Protein backbone atom coordinates (compact mmCIF):
# COMPACT_ATOMS: atom_id res chain seq x y z
CA UNK A 1 0.00 0.00 0.00
CA UNK A 2 1.58 3.25 -1.10
CA UNK A 3 1.15 6.81 0.12
CA UNK A 4 -1.50 7.62 -2.46
CA UNK A 5 -3.72 4.79 -1.26
CA UNK A 6 -3.24 5.70 2.40
CA UNK A 7 -4.16 9.33 1.64
CA UNK A 8 -7.21 8.15 -0.28
CA UNK A 9 -8.37 5.90 2.55
CA UNK A 10 -8.01 8.72 5.10
CA UNK A 11 -10.01 11.09 2.87
CA UNK A 12 -12.63 8.41 2.17
CA UNK A 13 -13.14 7.68 5.87
CA UNK A 14 -13.48 11.39 6.68
CA UNK A 15 -15.79 11.99 3.72
CA UNK A 16 -17.90 8.91 4.40
CA UNK A 17 -18.37 9.76 8.08
CA UNK A 18 -19.22 13.37 7.22
CA UNK A 19 -21.70 12.18 4.57
CA UNK A 20 -23.32 9.89 7.12
CA UNK A 21 -23.59 12.77 9.61
CA UNK A 22 -25.17 15.00 6.91
CA UNK A 23 -28.10 12.62 6.63
CA UNK A 24 -28.41 11.77 10.36
CA UNK A 25 -27.60 15.01 12.21
CA UNK A 26 -30.43 16.49 14.28
CA UNK A 27 -29.35 20.09 13.72
CA UNK A 28 -29.74 21.55 10.23
CA UNK A 29 -26.78 23.91 10.55
CA UNK A 30 -24.54 21.07 11.74
CA UNK A 31 -25.68 19.01 8.74
CA UNK A 32 -24.73 21.87 6.39
CA UNK A 33 -21.29 22.15 8.02
CA UNK A 34 -20.76 18.38 7.76
CA UNK A 35 -21.66 18.79 4.09
CA UNK A 36 -18.70 21.20 3.82
CA UNK A 37 -16.39 18.51 5.27
CA UNK A 38 -17.76 15.84 2.91
CA UNK A 39 -17.44 18.07 -0.17
CA UNK A 40 -13.90 19.14 0.78
CA UNK A 41 -12.74 15.56 1.20
CA UNK A 42 -14.28 14.76 -2.20
CA UNK A 43 -12.19 17.64 -3.60
CA UNK A 44 -9.15 15.91 -2.08
CA UNK A 45 -10.20 12.66 -3.78
CA UNK A 46 -10.32 14.52 -7.11
CA UNK A 47 -6.76 15.73 -6.50
CA UNK A 48 -5.64 12.14 -5.88
CA UNK A 49 -7.41 11.04 -9.08
CA UNK A 50 -5.27 13.46 -11.13
CA UNK A 51 -8.04 16.04 -11.64
CA UNK A 52 -6.83 19.26 -9.98
CA UNK A 53 -9.06 21.63 -11.99
CA UNK A 54 -12.22 19.71 -11.06
CA UNK A 55 -11.03 19.73 -7.42
CA UNK A 56 -10.69 23.52 -7.38
CA UNK A 57 -14.03 23.99 -9.16
CA UNK A 58 -15.53 21.70 -6.52
CA UNK A 59 -14.14 23.86 -3.71
CA UNK A 60 -15.21 27.14 -5.35
CA UNK A 61 -18.71 26.16 -6.49
CA UNK A 62 -19.79 23.55 -3.94
CA UNK A 63 -18.08 24.71 -0.76
CA UNK A 64 -18.10 28.37 -1.73
CA UNK A 65 -21.47 28.85 -3.39
CA UNK A 66 -23.88 25.95 -2.92
CA UNK A 67 -23.31 25.49 0.82
CA UNK A 68 -23.72 29.26 1.33
CA UNK A 69 -27.00 29.08 -0.65
CA UNK A 70 -28.15 26.18 1.55
CA UNK A 71 -27.22 28.11 4.72
CA UNK A 72 -29.28 31.06 3.44
CA UNK A 73 -32.15 28.64 2.78
CA UNK A 74 -31.87 27.35 6.36
CA UNK A 75 -31.90 30.90 7.75
CA UNK A 76 -34.85 32.06 5.63
CA UNK A 77 -37.02 29.04 6.40
CA UNK A 78 -36.32 29.12 10.15
CA UNK A 79 -35.57 25.42 10.13
CA UNK A 80 -36.42 23.89 13.50
CA UNK A 81 -34.05 21.61 15.44
CA UNK A 82 -34.76 18.06 16.52
CA UNK A 83 -35.32 14.55 15.28
CA UNK A 84 -39.14 14.76 15.21
CA UNK A 85 -39.36 17.73 12.84
CA UNK A 86 -36.40 16.92 10.61
CA UNK A 87 -36.86 13.21 10.10
CA UNK A 88 -39.67 10.96 9.01
CA UNK A 89 -41.34 8.45 11.31
CA UNK A 90 -39.27 5.56 12.66
CA UNK A 91 -41.00 3.16 10.28
CA UNK A 92 -40.11 5.29 7.24
CA UNK A 93 -36.52 5.66 8.50
CA UNK A 94 -36.12 1.90 8.91
CA UNK A 95 -37.38 1.47 5.37
CA UNK A 96 -35.00 4.14 4.11
CA UNK A 97 -32.11 2.47 5.95
CA UNK A 98 -32.95 -0.92 4.43
CA UNK A 99 -33.08 0.60 0.94
CA UNK A 100 -29.85 2.61 1.42
CA UNK A 101 -27.88 -0.24 3.01
CA UNK A 102 -29.20 -2.75 0.49
CA UNK A 103 -28.23 -0.46 -2.36
CA UNK A 104 -24.70 -0.04 -0.93
CA UNK A 105 -24.19 -3.78 -0.47
CA UNK A 106 -25.57 -4.55 -3.94
CA UNK A 107 -23.45 -1.89 -5.65
CA UNK A 108 -20.32 -3.01 -3.79
CA UNK A 109 -20.81 -6.66 -4.74
CA UNK A 110 -21.47 -5.84 -8.39
CA UNK A 111 -18.57 -3.37 -8.61
CA UNK A 112 -16.19 -5.83 -6.94
CA UNK A 113 -17.25 -8.46 -9.46
CA UNK A 114 -16.82 -6.17 -12.44
CA UNK A 115 -13.79 -4.02 -11.50
CA UNK A 116 -12.23 -5.90 -8.58
CA UNK A 117 -8.86 -6.48 -10.25
CA UNK A 118 -8.56 -3.19 -12.19
CA UNK A 119 -6.06 -0.55 -11.11
CA UNK A 120 -5.76 3.14 -11.90
CA UNK A 121 -2.26 3.64 -13.29
CA UNK A 122 -0.14 6.43 -11.87
CA UNK A 123 -0.34 9.39 -14.21
CA UNK A 124 0.42 13.07 -14.50
CA UNK A 125 -2.37 15.42 -13.43
CA UNK A 126 -4.65 16.57 -16.24
CA UNK A 127 -3.58 20.08 -17.15
CA UNK A 128 -6.18 22.83 -17.25
CA UNK A 129 -5.10 23.49 -20.84
CA UNK A 130 -6.00 19.93 -21.90
CA UNK A 131 -9.34 20.18 -20.12
CA UNK A 132 -10.10 23.52 -21.76
CA UNK A 133 -9.11 22.16 -25.16
CA UNK A 134 -11.53 19.27 -24.81
CA UNK A 135 -14.28 21.45 -23.33
CA UNK A 136 -14.20 24.09 -26.07
CA UNK A 137 -13.48 21.78 -29.03
CA UNK A 138 -15.37 18.51 -28.49
CA UNK A 139 -17.92 19.55 -25.91
CA UNK A 140 -18.67 23.13 -26.93
CA UNK A 141 -22.33 22.41 -27.73
CA UNK A 142 -23.16 20.89 -24.31
CA UNK A 143 -21.18 23.76 -22.78
CA UNK A 144 -23.45 26.29 -24.50
CA UNK A 145 -26.52 24.29 -23.47
CA UNK A 146 -25.33 24.42 -19.84
CA UNK A 147 -24.87 28.19 -20.10
CA UNK A 148 -28.46 28.57 -21.35
CA UNK A 149 -29.62 26.29 -18.52
CA UNK A 150 -27.82 28.46 -15.95
CA UNK A 151 -29.40 31.60 -17.41
CA UNK A 152 -32.85 29.98 -17.29
CA UNK A 153 -32.24 28.86 -13.69
CA UNK A 154 -31.10 32.37 -12.74
CA UNK A 155 -34.20 34.02 -14.20
CA UNK A 156 -36.45 31.30 -12.80
CA UNK A 157 -35.03 31.69 -9.29
CA UNK A 158 -35.51 35.49 -9.41
CA UNK A 159 -39.09 35.16 -10.71
CA UNK A 160 -39.96 32.55 -8.07
CA UNK A 161 -38.37 34.24 -5.08
CA UNK A 162 -39.21 37.92 -5.55
CA UNK A 163 -42.20 39.47 -3.80
CA UNK A 164 -44.62 41.35 -5.97
Amino acid at each position, binding site marked *: MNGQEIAFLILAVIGGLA*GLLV*VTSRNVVHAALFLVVALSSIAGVFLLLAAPFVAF*VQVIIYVGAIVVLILFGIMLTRAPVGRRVLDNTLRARVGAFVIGAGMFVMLTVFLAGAFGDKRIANQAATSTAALGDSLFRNYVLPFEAVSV*LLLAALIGAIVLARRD
Partner: protein
Amino acid sequence: MPLLYPLVFAAFLFSAGVYGVLARRNAVMVLMSIELMLNAVNVNLVAFNAYLRDQLVSGQVFALFVIAVAAAEVGIGLAIVLLIFRNRETVNIDEVDLLRW
Protein backbone atom coordinates in the same frame (compact mmCIF):
# COMPACT_ATOMS: atom_id res chain seq x y z
CA MET B 1 -4.58 2.71 -6.72
CA PRO B 2 -7.28 0.02 -7.18
CA LEU B 3 -10.25 1.32 -9.17
CA LEU B 4 -12.51 -0.22 -6.54
CA TYR B 5 -11.53 2.32 -3.83
CA PRO B 6 -13.15 5.39 -5.41
CA LEU B 7 -16.06 3.30 -6.74
CA VAL B 8 -16.95 1.94 -3.29
CA PHE B 9 -16.50 5.41 -1.77
CA ALA B 10 -18.92 6.81 -4.36
CA ALA B 11 -21.38 3.95 -3.80
CA PHE B 12 -21.33 4.70 -0.06
CA LEU B 13 -21.97 8.43 -0.58
CA PHE B 14 -24.77 7.68 -3.05
CA SER B 15 -26.43 5.26 -0.64
CA ALA B 16 -26.15 7.80 2.18
CA GLY B 17 -27.83 10.33 -0.12
CA VAL B 18 -30.63 7.88 -0.95
CA TYR B 19 -31.17 7.28 2.77
CA GLY B 20 -31.26 11.04 3.38
CA VAL B 21 -33.79 11.71 0.63
CA LEU B 22 -36.10 8.99 1.97
CA ALA B 23 -35.64 9.60 5.70
CA ARG B 24 -35.69 13.40 5.96
CA ARG B 25 -38.86 15.45 6.01
CA ASN B 26 -37.30 18.93 5.91
CA ALA B 27 -37.01 20.07 2.27
CA VAL B 28 -33.61 21.74 2.76
CA MET B 29 -32.19 18.49 4.15
CA VAL B 30 -33.54 16.62 1.13
CA LEU B 31 -31.69 19.09 -1.12
CA MET B 32 -28.46 18.46 0.83
CA SER B 33 -28.87 14.70 0.35
CA ILE B 34 -29.32 15.25 -3.39
CA GLU B 35 -26.04 17.20 -3.45
CA LEU B 36 -24.36 14.20 -1.81
CA MET B 37 -25.69 11.89 -4.54
CA LEU B 38 -24.54 14.23 -7.33
CA ASN B 39 -21.06 14.30 -5.79
CA ALA B 40 -20.94 10.52 -5.73
CA VAL B 41 -21.61 10.55 -9.47
CA ASN B 42 -18.77 13.04 -9.96
CA VAL B 43 -16.35 10.77 -8.07
CA ASN B 44 -17.31 7.93 -10.41
CA LEU B 45 -16.83 10.06 -13.53
CA VAL B 46 -13.40 11.30 -12.47
CA ALA B 47 -12.30 7.81 -11.35
CA PHE B 48 -13.22 6.24 -14.69
CA ASN B 49 -11.57 9.13 -16.52
CA ALA B 50 -8.33 8.34 -14.68
CA TYR B 51 -8.74 4.59 -15.20
CA LEU B 52 -9.36 4.84 -18.97
CA ARG B 53 -6.80 7.66 -19.43
CA ASP B 54 -9.22 9.27 -21.86
CA GLN B 55 -7.60 11.54 -24.43
CA LEU B 56 -10.65 13.84 -24.45
CA VAL B 57 -10.81 13.95 -20.60
CA SER B 58 -14.53 13.31 -21.02
CA GLY B 59 -15.04 12.22 -17.42
CA GLN B 60 -13.71 15.48 -16.00
CA VAL B 61 -15.66 17.56 -18.54
CA PHE B 62 -18.86 15.72 -17.58
CA ALA B 63 -18.05 16.25 -13.89
CA LEU B 64 -17.87 20.00 -14.60
CA PHE B 65 -21.27 19.81 -16.34
CA VAL B 66 -22.75 17.96 -13.37
CA ILE B 67 -21.40 20.64 -11.01
CA ALA B 68 -22.97 23.40 -13.16
CA VAL B 69 -26.32 21.60 -13.32
CA ALA B 70 -26.18 21.01 -9.54
CA ALA B 71 -25.69 24.75 -9.02
CA ALA B 72 -28.76 25.50 -11.18
CA GLU B 73 -30.75 22.79 -9.40
CA VAL B 74 -30.00 24.02 -5.89
CA GLY B 75 -30.80 27.62 -6.87
CA ILE B 76 -34.21 26.73 -8.28
CA GLY B 77 -34.84 24.21 -5.49
CA LEU B 78 -34.21 26.75 -2.74
CA ALA B 79 -36.36 29.35 -4.52
CA ILE B 80 -39.24 26.85 -4.57
CA VAL B 81 -38.65 25.93 -0.91
CA LEU B 82 -38.69 29.63 0.06
CA LEU B 83 -41.93 30.12 -1.88
CA ILE B 84 -43.54 27.14 -0.12
CA PHE B 85 -42.38 28.47 3.24
CA ARG B 86 -43.78 31.93 2.48
CA ASN B 87 -47.17 30.55 1.48
CA ARG B 88 -47.60 27.68 3.95
CA GLU B 89 -45.27 28.48 6.90
CA THR B 90 -43.68 25.03 6.63
CA VAL B 91 -40.97 23.23 4.66
CA ASN B 92 -42.12 19.81 5.83
CA ILE B 93 -42.51 17.81 2.63
CA ASP B 94 -45.25 15.63 4.16
CA GLU B 95 -47.50 18.66 4.53
CA VAL B 96 -46.96 19.97 1.00
CA ASP B 97 -49.61 17.90 -0.75
CA LEU B 98 -51.37 20.45 -2.97
CA LEU B 99 -50.99 18.28 -6.06
CA ARG B 100 -51.82 14.98 -4.44
CA TRP B 101 -55.53 14.65 -5.34
